[in-house]
């Protein structure tokens, strides 16, 4: 995929995530569309596309909504590198693949985020991590399945 196209997709996903998705929160915890899209790209596209998408999606999130510049870029890139390692087990038609990868991506993102915040000496309890993990993981899997089902035929035919 061309870099401009990847950049445009990451910008659109960021705009939807920071505005519309905020309204679909449970206990003020919302799903993370970027992790879902990273998994879909990892299943259907090449390694370069997934890394470039992670870079841009993290960049937009860091620049316009996050207190730290670089934290989301780093976490999305780490998730992408781990997903690339799992490439051999991807199945483009089986729903188990995206469910497993979204769960893995969400867990890595939030556990590493928690570790970063502890390193930065911020007072976050481990209960907060469990809350976020359980709710965000559930929401991500539900939305992931819906998006996967909606885009599957298009992505397989392309």
């Amino acid at each position, binding site marked *: 995929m061309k870099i401009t196209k990847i950049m445009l997709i990451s910008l659109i996903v960021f705009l939807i995530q920071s505005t519309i998705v905020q309204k679909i929160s449970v206990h003020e915890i919302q799903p993370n569309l970027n992790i879902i899209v990273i998994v879909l790209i990892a299943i259907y596209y090449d390694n370069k596309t997934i890394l470039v998408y992670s870079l841009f999606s993290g960049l937009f999130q860091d*620049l316009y909504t996050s207190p730290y510049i670089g934290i989301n870029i780093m976490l999305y890139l780490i998730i992408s590198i781990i997903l690339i390692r799992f490439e051999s087990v991807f199945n483009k038609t089986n729903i188990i693949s995206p469910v497993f990868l979204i769960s893995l991506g969400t867990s890595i993102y939030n556990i590493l985020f928690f570790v*970063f915040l502890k390193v*930065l000496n911020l007072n976050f309890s481990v209960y907060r991590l469990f809350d976020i993990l359980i709710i965000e993981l559930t929401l991500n899997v539900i939305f992931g399945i819906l998006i996967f089902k909606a885009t599957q035929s298009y992505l397989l035919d392309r």
Partner: protein
Amino acid sequence: MESRFRNLIIIVSVLVLLLSIGYSNGGRTSVTIVENLFSYVVIPTQDVLTSVSNNVTEKISDISRVFKYREEIKTLEKKNKILKEENISLTLDKVQIDQLETLKKNLNYINRNDFNDYVTAKVVSKDSSNWFNMFTINAGLNQGVKKYSIVVADNGLVGKVYEIGDNYSKVITIVDNKSKISFEILSLDQKYQGYIESTHDGLLTGRIFEPNANLKDGMTIITTGQGIYPEGLLIGKIISVIEDEDAFLKRVTIEPEVDFRYLKYVTVITIDQEQSEWINENN
């Protein structure tokens, strides 16, 4: 050779990103030209998308509320009766206020108001990570907002401006763990002070310095004037008092005055550049 080169790129990227995280810790006083240029596309688009999603959410909640309307009408009728009675007594008071206004003019009294300069802004987006309580507003340097400007809404304290662009600002709320606030309890008898220790589920936990403080649920919490927040800004009210015998201090759970979930508009109390720089140096 290729894998060595790849590893080198990974190490350099990690180092650059860690430096960037460290550099941006505490918020930047100005953003880059590229960020500002992009913000002219990003912020208005977010503004439109937020307005549309707010309208849709309101419509959905309106539909779900239809069944409650009958009871609400009855309650409103009762309230209306009480308000009519109050209106009569207030009209009588207004006559007295008018008389005092005339007296004030005659005495050349100058009205003191600490918050003469303010900007009303719209909340256009929120942090997506679930870890921070931050949001972005559609007002920045061009509208007179500075870093550390105070943000309020519904008469309550919302937070402060954390980072600023030409036409947008990132606001960090008081329910974010990065916020540090000292507070006092509004009481006629005693002046109890404390500080916000942590936040969880949209509630604040505060420690009171006085071990024998006589605290009750419903007491009002305001800012002390220490730190960047001016004195007397409403933070919220106590919803529970926790005795901590080990620490010899009392802890209180505070419900913020502002409901951050439904925040659409905020008021930014602007400060001058010198004040902003002074706070930045001393923070």
